[in-house]
């Protein structure tokens, strides 16, 4: 295993190793010379803008996009303006920042997506330098213009340009600058010769005041937290006396650390807020470096920075020593979360600190538990009894669990599948001697590595480390594969990891379909078919999104075909409306059952169509029609009338007029509305309603006349109430007339008159009335009404007239228990006798009670 440490270089306490990721598949004649290069972190794609071979006015530069392994993904001549800077967004889109401040966005395959501008003033002053940066808010762009002004856009998907304040004394571009994201704020840190400044939204604050005192190793850093409070810090020692100028700076991947390189060849490392110093190294190289990047893995104790010159690559850390590599070709460094990738014309390498788990296991003569376990397993495979000795040694220290953990962890850090396997086998071997060791870490590491190895594959070309993979999450990895149109691999990974369908396989398939619909050469039919076959049984597919994409590409027919597959009819509606298929949208909305959606389409149709067509459309959709009617009932009464008119719904029209008549104050208007109602009811062949409405009109007219003549207030009363009012006010003649005119049934009229007379205590008139002819309601009501008016004396007069069946009730009503008993006994009705008995109280005459009880028992016997 000695060869594993062959590429390790010590630096202080730690080791650094440089491993080859790929031999580049591209064939670049001049390597990376004369190229503008941008490589995305997390093993992302590489973009090159190659200047033409012979500079002439007609020759155009060539834009090329490669995977990390150098496989060509796109290549086309650059026809736009001169480009200052290339960069990648978090979604693997390429940003090309032009001199005039225009930023063009391309996808991975070189298809133009959109563009935006960094502001008008840039057009004149030109972009001198630009940087693309990433923050929790997304991908941002920062530029400095010819007028030495900085402009920032924190998130290009939600473009808000911020022009930063002027930097005093700055002319042209600063010597170096970086973008920092701190405390949810994006700032620019820049060096102009000897001066350091922090630029934020509102102010430009000088940071380092380098005292000119000779030999003073102390610098003052004044960090202005706000315009009012000025804090004074002492800078850590570091900048040599002669050196004043900062020529390069780098901020770490996490924005936590900052490195400054001075023209004296000194390197200062510290926290990005400039409060703490980590270390300072004299590199003894005075030429300004070409590139400087942080190379620090999370949780590592040692800060380190990789600095690149033309032929030299230098790793500097805490100690005064450095590691130096010679570079034999033009290269570019890409900062990663846990190391630095070095891309050259022929090779792609990863430089990183050796993780402690690997150090423990592979360091020569290491006695760490993991190392012993690996040794034990090796002996075991050789069938040597030494395996037992090693194992015993581990078990004696009871560190077998730790040993397994180390091996599993180290496997994650190793790039070579063979080494991974060796380590995992050792772990698995160790696990056998442990009870209760949780299986999850081992299993998930195996899974992770399988996924990682498959994406590191040369043809895929995503050289992710395990640390990066855990940071970016599977979801994002799947996205990245989808951007690269590596659908089968993405699906395989989803299935392998058992990702829930709707966030795994279904999502990939949706992207596939979105891509598929853009294939212009294929006919609609076959695309729709292909899509439906592939997506058929996948759960949670949003066909409407795919259809929307098809529509964006101008394929309306295809979009409609695809929408047919959408199970959620609600989802189909907005797109159908957008495509002006409003009729179809309406039926889909109805199908969904969501009435709000139906309303939405109806409102849309109402604005789109002329009234006639609109009504016709509704007519064919009863559900929509009744909803629209509801809407009109509350909001647009007139439209409601039109609707009924159109449908020849005379019944409803009649009702409509009746309703309207009640809103009318003037009697004439009211009558004319009622007349319209009568006409409509007649047309509807609703004789009853027509007649009733005519009656109503007749009553209203009668009431008005009487109100005018006699000063009564009858208008609006019902017929019954009118009669009652007339009878109580002694308008007997008028009441009689109404009674005849409206053919009021006798029974009801008798009730009415009876109560009216009782109410005004007109007992004489009542007696006359009772004698006028035979009462159609009998005489019990007379008794009851009198009792109700507390006049038992009058009530008694009518008891004798009551029919035999009601006699008992009548006697009871006036409280004549004996009479009731008499009547009940006479009728020999058990029920009635019981009723009388139930009214008896302890004070009732004994004899009567006995008679009743006797009568009841005889009645019961019958």
């Amino acid at each position, binding site marked *: 295993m000695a060869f594993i440490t062959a590429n390790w270089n010590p630096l202080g306490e730690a080791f650094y190793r440089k491993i080859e990721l790929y031999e580049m598949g591209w064939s670049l004649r001049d390597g990376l010379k004369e190229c503008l290069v941008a490589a995305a972190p997390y093993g992302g794609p590489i973009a090159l803008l190659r200047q033409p071979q012979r500079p002439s006015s007609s020759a155009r530069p060539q834009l090329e996009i490669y995977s990390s392994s150098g496989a060509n993904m796109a290549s086309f001549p650059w026809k736009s303006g001169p480009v200052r800077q290339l960069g990648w967004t978090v979604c693997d889109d390429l940003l090309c920042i032009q001199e005039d401040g225009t930023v063009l966005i391309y996808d991975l395959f070189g298809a133009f997506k959109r563009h935006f501008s960094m502001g008008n003033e840039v057009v004149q002053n030109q972009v001198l330098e630009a940087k693309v940066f990433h923050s929790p808010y997304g991908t941002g762009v920062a530029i400095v213009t010819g007028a030495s002004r900085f402009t920032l856009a924190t998130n290009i998907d939600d473009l808000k340009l911020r022009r930063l304040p002027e930097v005093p004394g700055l002319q042209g571009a600063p010597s170096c600058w970086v973008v920092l994201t701190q405390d949810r704020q994006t700032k620019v840190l820049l060096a102009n010769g000897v001066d350091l400044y922090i630029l934020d939204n509102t102010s430009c604050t000088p940071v380092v005041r380098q005292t000119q005192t000779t030999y003073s190793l102390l610098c003052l850093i004044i960090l202005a937290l706000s315009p009012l409070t000025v804090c004074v810090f002492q800078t850590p020692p570091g900048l040599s006396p002669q050196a004043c100028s900062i020529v390069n700076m780098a901020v770490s991947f996490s924005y936590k650390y900052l490195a400054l390189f001075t023209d004296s060849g000194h390197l200062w490392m510290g926290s990005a807020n400039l409060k703490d110093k980590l270390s300072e190294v004299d590199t003894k190289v005075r030429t300004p470096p070409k590139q400087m990047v942080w190379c620090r893995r999370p949780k590592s104790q040692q800060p380190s920075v990789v600095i690149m010159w033309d032929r030299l690559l230098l790793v500097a850390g805490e100690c005064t020593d450095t590691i130096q590599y010679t570079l034999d070709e033009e290269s570019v460094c890409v900062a990663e979360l846990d190391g630095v990738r070095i891309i050259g014309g022929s090779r792609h390498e990863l430089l990183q600190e050796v993780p402690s788990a690997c150090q423990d296991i592979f360091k020569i003569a290491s006695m760490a538990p993991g190392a012993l376990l690996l040794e034990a397993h090796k002996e075991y495979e050789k069938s040597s009894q030494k395996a037992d000795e090693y194992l015993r040694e581990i078990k004696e220290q009871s560190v077998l669990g730790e040993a397994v953990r180390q091996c599993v962890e180290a496997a994650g850090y190793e790039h070579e599948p063979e080494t991974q396997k060796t380590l995992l086998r050792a772990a698995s071997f160790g696990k056998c001697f442990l009870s209760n060791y949780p299986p999850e870490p081992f299993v998930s590491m195996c899974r992770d590595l399988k996924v990682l190895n498959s994406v590191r594959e040369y043809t895929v070309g995503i050289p992710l480390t395990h640390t990066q993979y855990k940071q970016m999450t599977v979801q994002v990895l799947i996205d990245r594969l989808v951007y690269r149109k590596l659908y089968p691999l993405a699906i395989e990974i989803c299935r392998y990891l058992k990702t829930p369908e709707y966030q795994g396989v279904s999502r990939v398939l949706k992207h596939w379909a979105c891509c598929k619909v853009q294939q212009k050469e294929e006919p609609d039919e076959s695309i729709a078919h292909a899509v439906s076959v592939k997506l058929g049984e996948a759960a949670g597919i949003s066909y409407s999104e795919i259809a929307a994409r098809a529509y964006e590409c101008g394929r309306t027919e295809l979009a409609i075909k695809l929408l047919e597959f959408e199970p959620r009819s609600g989802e189909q509606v907005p797109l159908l409306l957008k495509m002006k298929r409003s009729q179809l949208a309406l039926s889909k909305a109805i199908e969904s059952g969501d009435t709000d959606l139906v309303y939405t389409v109806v*409102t849309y149709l109402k604005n789109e169509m002329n009234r006639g067509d609109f009504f016709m459309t509704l007519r064919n959709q009863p559900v929509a029609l009744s909803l629209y*009617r509801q809407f009109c009932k509350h909001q647009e009464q007139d439209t409601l009338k039109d609707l009924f008119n159109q449908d020849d719904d005379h019944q409803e029209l009649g009702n409509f007029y009746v309703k309207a008549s009640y809103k009318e104050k003037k009697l004439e208007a009211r009558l004319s509305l009622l007349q319209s109602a009568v006409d409509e009811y007649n047309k509807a062949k609703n004789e009853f309603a027509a007649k009733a409405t005519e009656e109503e009109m007749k009553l209203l007219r009668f009431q008005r006349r009487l109100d005018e003549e006699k000063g009564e207030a009858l208008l609006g009363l019902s017929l019954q109430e009118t009669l009652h009012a007339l009878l109580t006010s002694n308008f007997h003649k008028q009441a009689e007339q109404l009674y005849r005119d409206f053919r009021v049934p006798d029974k009801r009229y008798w009730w009415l008159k009876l109560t009216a007379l009782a109410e005004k205590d007109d007992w004489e008139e009542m007696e006359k009335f009772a004698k006028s002819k035979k009462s159609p309601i009998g005489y019990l009501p007379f008794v009851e009404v009198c009792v109700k008016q507390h006049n038992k004396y009058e009530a008694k007069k009518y008891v004798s007239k009551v029919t035999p069946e009601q006699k008992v009730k009548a006697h009871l009503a006036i409280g004549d228990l004996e009479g009731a008993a008499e009547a009940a006994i006479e009728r020999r009705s058990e029920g009635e006798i019981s009723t009388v008995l139930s009214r008896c109280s302890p004070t009732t005459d004994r004899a009567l009670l006995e008679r009743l009880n006797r009568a009841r028992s005889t009645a019961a016997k019958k």
Partner: protein
Amino acid sequence: MSAHLSNGRVNLNILREAARKELREFLDKCAGSKAIVWDEYLTGPFGLIAQYSLLKEHEVEKMFTLKGGRLPAADVKNIIFFVRPRLELMDIIAENISEKNGRPPQMHSPRDFHILFVPRRSMLCEQRLKEQGVLGSFINIDEYILDLIPYDGDLLSMESEGAFRECYLESDQTSLYHTAKGLMTLQALYGTIPQIFGKGECARHVANMMLRMKREFAGSQTQILPVFDSLLLLDRNIDLLTPLATQLTYEGLIDEVYGITNGYAKLPPEKFAAQKKQGEVGKDLPTEPKKMQLNSAEELYAEIRDKNFNAIGAALSKKAKIISAAFEERHNAKTVGEIKQFVSQLPHMQAARSSLANHTSIAELIKDITTSEAFFDNLTVEQEFMTGVDTDKVNTYIEDSIAQKDPLIKILRLVCMQSVCNNGLKQKILDYYKREILQTYGYEHMLTLNNLEKTGLLKPQTSTRNNYPTIRKTLKLWMEDANEQNPNDISYVYSGYAPLSIRLTQVLARPGWRSIEEVLKMLPGPHFEERQQLPAGLHKKRQQGENRTTLVFFLGGVTYAEVAALRFLSQMEDGGTEYIIATTKLINGTSWIKSLMDRPEAP
């Protein structure tokens, strides 16, 4: 507070907790102090989900009722509107917050406005707010999906008053959409319901939407072992008769006489005054009606509410004996331990005693009514109709009641009942009743009569054949010897009449609807059965003797008497099925007819 929800066969508290959680999440979205402006209609239903204390915990400091004009002053950071998605409410909100109506801006610190739509947000309403120029003033526009509200341990209600009117009169199926959504929420919490049965047009529509939504949500299914074995969807219009009849259970009568809204009844205060300290009686009689919450959290109420009212007296006196015996126990308590045990039970016993006193008072109040002649006469006519006596003639009692101008709703209940029991009235009789009503109560009621005809409650006889007797006989809707004290059949809830809806439910459980195909064909709308696929491994293995759980959903309302009948079936020893009941709204004949009335506004 909500313990009674978790006592039933299905723990409905899960649903309530889910609703509360969502409410809390929304409130926390609006950081800082808050005032809530309520759509008045919503306060009742919300009361079943959360008390003021919950709102207060989330910095709700003030509450107002939504009304026109400007907002009342409140020194809070957030103003939240809790509203139903109705256009007219949007106009009021716009009036509330528009700058023109506001005070000068310096008077109050800037406030954030939010809208919470219940139960669903609406594009139409948002469009209206946009037209009014206020949509941009809202920081949050959200929806609070409150479809099915746990009402009691075995009862869910959507508390949607207008559902029957909308569905059967106005062909507006919005509430059915909410029903389907509510059932989906229920299935998300309690598992997919494997079997769906239904009868009626609306039932079919809801089932269709459910099946469609299931397809739409495919892939995001929750792996929950199904709690419900089947769902039965019933249209109210297959059984128009039951709600028209006067309910004769204790709870049903409280509802008939005093009305129960959102689980509360307002009772006349006089009877309850005496329960206060005896010295104070007579000084100040309370004038406010006594508001009482009625649910199974009250042990005594849970025991007696579903009894026939005629059995209440005996039940109350038995309970009284038990309670006084329990109090007598104190004489037997000799040792300190015994006394301590007695004292520890005191609060419970005192609660039981005051509960008993309350219900004795209520029972007395109701008894005054049920023993009146008017009540008796009315009931006699109802029972005549239900048994098919003289349903084809003008009824004298109705005639006399009209002549005496008894309340219109009472008349309408009776006339409709006669029409339903006769499968429509002869044109001549129908017109006679209608004319009597119009002349007596006013011609404006023509619109109401028209509505009743549209919904089929009132109709002219079209065929000479009256199929109600067939239905009555096949389904045994009338039981001569209903035992009110110790019931052996659901007919006890109406003292003889067995609710048609519940008979259908009963027959479905055993022996199945196939046995009554003929009758089902006579009732409106299709009947159907659907099955929903369960994910593998979720098939329930029933234990020997384990009951099935059926959710019965009444589209368009259910009465307390019907609920009582279902509870009776659940408790039957050899029933084999336990029922959970869901509905759009708990109704009675009066509230139901009222919802169908149209009152033109006077000028």
